[in-house]
């Protein structure tokens, strides 16, 4: 079975934010929630690099490990999803996540934050595939339509890759061989306990 991953080629990412608005567009994510965002290091200085970040859908996801209500589950494609009907908005996953993926829709009195929201790899949630109920809670389910996450599909420079981990790793390796440099697949060791060269 395929193991879905994200890979951001920081030598290609130009911080155009297409991934961010594609995600908003596809999933109708409200203002204030950023399932995906672009982080720039050394902004304005030589060595400036950008990287597009969202839930990496980790192997042995730490969010799932700390969730007191066990709302997380991993699909057959190794996509980490969660059930908002179970989520109590405690925020443990936010502290556990190495990528800052979990988002909370509100700040209320007594620390209430609302149900957690995060990147679903465009695979929506536990409701029936591509039902109105699923869309309302989780957004689009492109995986069920046989498509990949829109953020990666629309990436302006094809820096952000999504798909079967082996395939995107081989695309990246080929790129690095062609051009002669590569900063590596950022976050892979943390998320998947391997690197592209492994």
């Amino acid at each position: 079975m395929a193991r879905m991953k994200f890979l951001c080629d920081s030598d290609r990412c130009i911080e155009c934010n297409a991934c961010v608005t594609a995600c908003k567009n596809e999933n109708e994510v409200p203002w204030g929630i950023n399932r995906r965002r672009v982080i720039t290091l050394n902004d304005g200085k030589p060595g400036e690099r950008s990287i597009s970040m969202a839930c990496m859908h980790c192997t042995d996801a730490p969010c799932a490990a700390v969730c007191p209500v066990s709302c997380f589950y991993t699909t057959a494609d190794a996509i980490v999803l969660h059930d908002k009907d179970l989520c109590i908005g405690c925020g443990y996953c936010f502290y556990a996540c190495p990528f800052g993926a979990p988002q909370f829709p509100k700040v209320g009195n007594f620390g209430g934050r609302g149900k957690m929201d995060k990147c679903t790899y465009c695979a929506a949630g536990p409701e029936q595939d591509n039902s109105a109920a699923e869309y309302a809670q989780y957004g689009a389910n492109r995986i069920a339509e046989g498509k990949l996450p829109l953020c990666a599909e629309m990436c302006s420079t094809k820096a952000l890759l999504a798909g079967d981990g082996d395939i995107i790793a081989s695309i990246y390796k080929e790129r690095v061989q062609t051009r002669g440099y590569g900063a590596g697949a950022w976050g892979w060791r943390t998320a998947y306990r391997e690197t592209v060269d492994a």
Partner: protein
Amino acid sequence: MLIKRSEGKAARQRLSSTYQGLSGGGLDRRAFLRQAGLGGAGLAALGGLGLGTVRPAAAGATDFGQPVQRIKNICTHCSVGCTVVAEVQNGVWVGQEPAWDSPINRGTHCAKGASVRELTHGDRRLKYPLKLVDGQWQRLSWDQAIEEIGEKLLEIRRKSGPDSVFWLGSAKFSNEGAYLMRKLAAFWGTNTIDHQARICHSTTVAGVANVFGYGAQTNSYNDIRNSRSIIIMGGNPAEAHPVAMQHVLSGKEMNRANMIVIDPRFTRTAAHATEYVRIRPGTDIPVIWGLLWHIFENGWEDKEFIRQRVYGMDDVRREVAKWHPAEVLRVTGVPEAQLKRVAQIFATQKPSTLIWCMGATQKTVGTANVRAFSILLMATGNLGAPGTGANIFRGHTNVQGATDLGLDVTTLPAYYGIDENAWRHWCRVWDVPYEWMVSRFASKALMETPGIPTTRWFDAVLLPKEQVQQPDLLKAMIAVGHGGNTVSRMPEAIKGMEKLELLVVADPHPTNMSSMSDRRNGTYLLPMSTQFECAGSRTASNRSLQWYEPVVKPIFESKTDYELLYRLAEKLGFAQEMFKTIEVRGKEPVAESILREINRGAISTGYSGQSPERLKLHMQHQADFDVVTLRGKAGTPVAGETYGLPWPCWGTPEMKHPGSHILYNTHLHVKEGGGTFRARFGVERNGQTLLAEGSYSKGSEITDGYPEFTVAVLKKLGWYDELTEREKEIIARIGGNDPDRVSWSTDLSFGIIRVAMEHGCVPYGNAKARGNAWNLPDPVPVHREPIYTPRTDLLAEYPAIDDRRGFRMPHLAKSVQLRSNTVARSFPIVLTSGRLVEYEGGGEETRSNKWLAELQQDMFVEINTADAAERGIREGQFVWVDGPENGAKVKVKALVTERVAKGVAFMPYHFGGWWQGEDRRRHYPPGTDPIVLGESANTVTTYGYDPVTAMQETKVTLCQIRAA
């Protein structure tokens, strides 16, 4: 639900501190802006307001039980021309899918392209016509609006003449819309018809046309994949044309190409360069001459190319000789070793391309800049072949097409100019008597005089009447698809706006024209549909035309550009003449029919072969084109044709010319898209030939230079009798008493073009490119300091040009530049401007898009760390940026960064809605205010115009910055 920042309130709440660690603690542009935004959200949360579940109640999710229609359109933002695939259900645009088949974007988008679906939902669109009555917006019907506007226009025409109306069109139009508006201005009787090209690439168009023959990108985005050396100078495609970077970075990776960025600012593009050269703003010509100095010194130039295809290179050498490395260092700040290295790479690791954008063009020396850039390409022989060329990235989606089709004060469609021959040609195409057309104008002289450009329309309102060479000052402005914050000297623009008797803003959004002045009456807002709501063709920067279909019907009460123009023509009383040759359904002219008329008349630019049928076929078969060569693959219905039939696409559609992927490419037969430099400046000058020597396009029967084709030339060559009887008859009718003078570009039979191509000859002739453009100011470009410069020590040696007149008005230069001596002390920082990836143009449309607005919530100024430290300015705080004219100032946030050098500041130009510290949100019609407002950079930009095109100077001026 959408939460927006409330006006004028402090934005530091609990959530912002909770989330502060999110970006990893580093300071970057978006981190500080995003935190500001979260503060806003936190503020709302205190009132007990949640953000709700993921999906707002009214959002359009795909219903998988219903059929989904897929429609192709083109992104309406920049000029790359990305195909947008829209999924539509029940007339609602419910989803956007990657357009994998497009050879241009291959499925991808930038932030703007990936969010265009929002446009047709349009929470903040203008929904119905409005007029201002004693300062209040009142709704009215379309019929009444057209009636009132038309009556007022006719009254102004009676009182002041047709030249007192300023017609402002748009680079967002389709080709058909742009052409129709130019035609409308002609039938109204004025040349005062302009659009955004004036303020973005007018200097490129004029400059490059005067060097090579045509004012356009010579190669294409895709072709950059072939380059081994790439210089990007005065451009930031990573933000302005992100999808173009796909091709640039692929070229860089596949060929291990050199990617050199020359810019005053370390841009996001520079972050990916192999070499970054920082220059002092406004010194482009010395940098180019500095490069050429090394090239000539070391003999790296392409001598054979220069001998065969370049005129005036010796004059260039004389100027370049003055730019010894020490002088270049003194003027530009670039060290000798670096410039020599770049020169060697560019001249020897070929093919090389030079990419430029508005950093080169928006200057008082814009036209000279682009000619210098072109000369660098000529000297190194980097033209007319894959991987080479002047890859000029145009700005808006159809700014190339709108320029080609004559939304320009100096020409009719297809660069025919405005002399009598040009008018007679177009009158024949339009099937109206020339004498009738003359009667529409105040005089034949004004009919042949360039109109008022958009950079200076307010001068033509405010100047004393005797200084403006037309019967009366401007009294009315009809702005269709154009923001109000796009021109420099905004304090004066607002005074001009307040003095106008009539202001009509026809746009999908109210634009800040509705809010920036204190007008109380005589203002109309007409809701227009976007290009996603109509059909037509648009021309991408690489000259490819793409046909698109409406995704949805015009939303709310909006109307298409076509219908607006028809209704206006009808009210103004010339619809019958104007639409004699165009099919109109109801009140809406049919796009296909307009394109066919363009095909008949726009011969000189080769807009004649792109029939609607051929363009539609290309859109259907996008997948059959090669991504590098853009050629249709063998065995497909588009075999051998270039994607989008980039102009020139010679002759009639039936001649099946494949379009010209690369201009001036002698390696191909003219029938396969080959070409030569255009012969448009005569055949000889001072005893030297202007025609090519020993260079010709493949398969040409004339193996040397030749002039443009006319009947006389055909006769001389003995090819005249190859014209058919019918062609001869049409030519005789056009020529009247002197048919020998009928040229390829006025021959409506297309016979001359046909015969020339049969012999392998290019209809426009085969000449040399010009290093010396003797008809322009500074025939060989020379350095001139900006009008406002901190380097007053250089003013004596490198002064601005002398004061002159142009475009019916006085054009000051040297006299204003003298002010630098007094103001440079109090305004020591050079101010430059540019684009952000999320927004476009004046920004009203993109700042109204919730998905984009969230990413950039504050107007800011980039200030160097040293300058900030001297002034006690901290990251993120409000500062005042003061300009040296009109006491202008803007209140913006400080972004302290090394991105700009010490003594340089940068502001993005997409913001509007604030005025010198005042938030003018309440002046917008209710419900149409953009989500994000901010100060306009142009509030503090200053006087300064290019002498050839009246391009404004927005890239170099002076300012002072202080904590607010």
